[in-house]
């Protein structure tokens, strides 16, 4: 290896910079033990990550949801290096069969920070049911020896309190805090906070699931914004309109697709049944009841002038349930007496 370094001044420079920051190469003996998966290489001091992946086999102890791994990763580059280290956590049964897990629960990409600015990074890897063994593998994504690592490859139960303030979580890289606040935002149907959180998660990891979630929320924002520009919908006792839109014609909206697309699909079905709206047939009665708000939006989308019929003169307090939309927002659609 030494001969190779002499061949390349750039490699020698990386090595020198890492050494001066306290990172040392892993000795041959330790590397050999690491290859046998029996030594926690980066636990006892700063080490330079070698080209070949380093693994550790350990027994699964505890089943807490907060089991995780902490690392600091450094690079000789002047800027943060995205996905410089890939960590793969695989779980096995007692008899050595690997337990299948989704990629996002199994693979984690760590940032490498410039020397002198390293930040701790943590991810949670709770064991799945039936797991008895765990193999943690650290692999360098960079093609050069410029990455230094410090931390234990043996997962531990983490203390998940106190919860950091939202602003702090938004600046950090800890996905579990961002997910925690996202859960809170979902409960509160707070789309604005959810947008901030998801934007941060997308910036950090560019996961397709996060992008999809943000797209759905952004779409709901747009639908609500468009509808709020319309006049409020009249609410009255039963009217004698020829068309009555009693219940949804397609499956209920469940946030598995953008609301605008669901509305278009429902509106097309509605027009197919009622015929295209025209001057004499533009009004459609929407009896209060299940999914009232969705039916209202779909009727509006289809081009009808919806009139909401109350039930026994009463407008319901909850005009349906649209994910991420607050009840007050839905109620604001109606011109309630």
């Amino acid at each position, binding site marked *: 290896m030494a001969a190779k370094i002499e061949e390349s001044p750039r490699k020698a420079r990386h090595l020198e910079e890492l050494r001066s920051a306290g990172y040392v190469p892993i000795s041959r003996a330790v590397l050999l033990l690491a290859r046998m998966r029996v030594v926690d290489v980066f636990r006892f001091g700063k080490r330079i990550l070698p080209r070949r992946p380093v693994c550790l086999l350990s027994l699964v102890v505890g089943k807490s949801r907060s089991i995780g791994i902490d690392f600091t990763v450094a690079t000789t*580059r002047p*800027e*943060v*290096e*995205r996905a410089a280290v890939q960590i793969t956590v695989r779980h096995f049964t007692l008899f050595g069969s690997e337990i299948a897990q989704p990629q996002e629960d199994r693979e984690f990409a760590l940032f490498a920070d410039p020397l002198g600015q390293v930040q701790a990074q943590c991810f949670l890897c709770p064991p799945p049911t039936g797991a008895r063994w765990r193999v943690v593998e650290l692999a360098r994504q960079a093609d050069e020896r410029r990455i230094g690592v410090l931390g234990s490859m043996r997962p531990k139960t983490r203390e998940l309190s106190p919860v950091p303030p939202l602003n702090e979580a938004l600046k950090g890289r800890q996905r579990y805090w961002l997910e925690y606040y996202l859960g809170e935002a979902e409960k509160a149907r707070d789309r604005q906070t959810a*947008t*901030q959180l998801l*934007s*941060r998660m*997308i*910036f950090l990891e*560019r996961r397709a699931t996060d*992008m999809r979630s*943000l*797209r759905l*929320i*952004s*779409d709901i924002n*747009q639908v609500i914004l468009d509808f709020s520009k319309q006049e409020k919908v009249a609410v009255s006792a039963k009217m004698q309109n020829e068309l009555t839109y009693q219940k949804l014609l397609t499956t209920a909206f469940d946030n598995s697709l953008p609301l605008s*697309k669901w509305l278009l699909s429902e509106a097309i079905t509605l027009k197919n049944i009622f015929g295209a709206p025209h001057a004499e047939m533009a009004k459609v009665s929407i009896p209060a009841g299940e999914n009232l708000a969705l039916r209202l939006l779909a009727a509006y989308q289809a081009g009808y002038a919806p009139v909401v019929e109350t039930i026994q003169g009463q407008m319901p307090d909850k005009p349906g349930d649209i994910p991420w939309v607050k009840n007050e927002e839905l109620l604001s659609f109606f011109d309630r007496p």
Partner: protein
Amino acid sequence: MADRPSPDTAIADIDRSFEEACVDAKLSLFARGGDLEEAHLLAYHPPVQRNPYQQMLYASAYEHSFACFPLIDHTEAAPPPVNAPLGVHYHWVHRVFANCRSSRDAKKAVFRFFDTLDKHRQADIKIIWTVHNLLSHSAMFPEEEIELRAGLGSRADYIHIMNPSTVELCGRYYDLPSARTFMVPHPSYFGVYGDYISPEQARFDLGVAPEDKTVLLFGSLGPHKGTRQFLEELSELEANINTRLRVIIAGAPGSASYMEDIYRLVADKPRVTLIEHHIDDQAVQRLFRASDAVLCPYDVGLNSGVAATAATFGRPCVVPDILVPAMSAANAGIIGFNPSDRGSLATATARALEARENPSVEAALYQWAEHHRPVAISRLFFEALRERW
């Protein structure tokens, strides 16, 4: 000079020596049955793989008794071991600076490059230069690059330009001897990329709704492409044109720090899709067919393969003003904006989206593409070269 070698043996036999390539070239011309007195050899440098430009430009070489072959190391060019005139055709000359770490290195590289050119001239090797840009997109050593281009311009026997304003525009930085220039436009990509996917299929594949006004920013990502600034101004642009845009950005990623900026800017924009890898030739059609307009929000540009690709797929394209003359025949399909007035980008985008609604614009773009198909442009190129050489 250590340029990037071309590792793709599917494009050219890179193990062949320069001398062997010359002999093979002459033999292939002989096999074709043409007049050997007319045979010309053209070695091009640097050869590029992913950009099909060189293959397009040389498409009709044999018709004109030219045999073209890649020259990985241009210092190897020497009088050929066959009785045929040889020319070295230079393209993206900034690669001279590939391994330079300081302006001192860059100066040395320029000196070495000129030395090689002078040796070409002493050996009666013609020097041809295609001016692709005013300066390279991400010029690391602008002063040295200007010196390099000025020196190449003064030494080149023939200078191929694709934009009629090239001499004037380059004049801001360096002189090009207009007497030695000849104008042959950029070819379209007619017949180059796969083209069989319908717009409806393309939009469906990419998750673009039929009613979405979709713009495409295509090509390798880097500061020169104006993508960062475009994303920063996107909300303002949408407000100005009163349209929510669906944006697709596709191309090979740029430097890590640049990409961090792009990731940050797209993170809160769910209507922006970032496809950060090289786009396969068969996949190019999907992106262009799914789009209503193509944007090239560059700060500067002399020629644009992206605009030519957009025209090939019948899509209007927004380009910097100085690029418009290069594709003036495409009429209303090529819409200029003034890079120093960012507001003009919004106006141009609105015009491009409007143009998409006009079938005559699409027809004009197809006509331009057909007229500028690679074989036709290649013929013009070799005819022009023949006249002079």
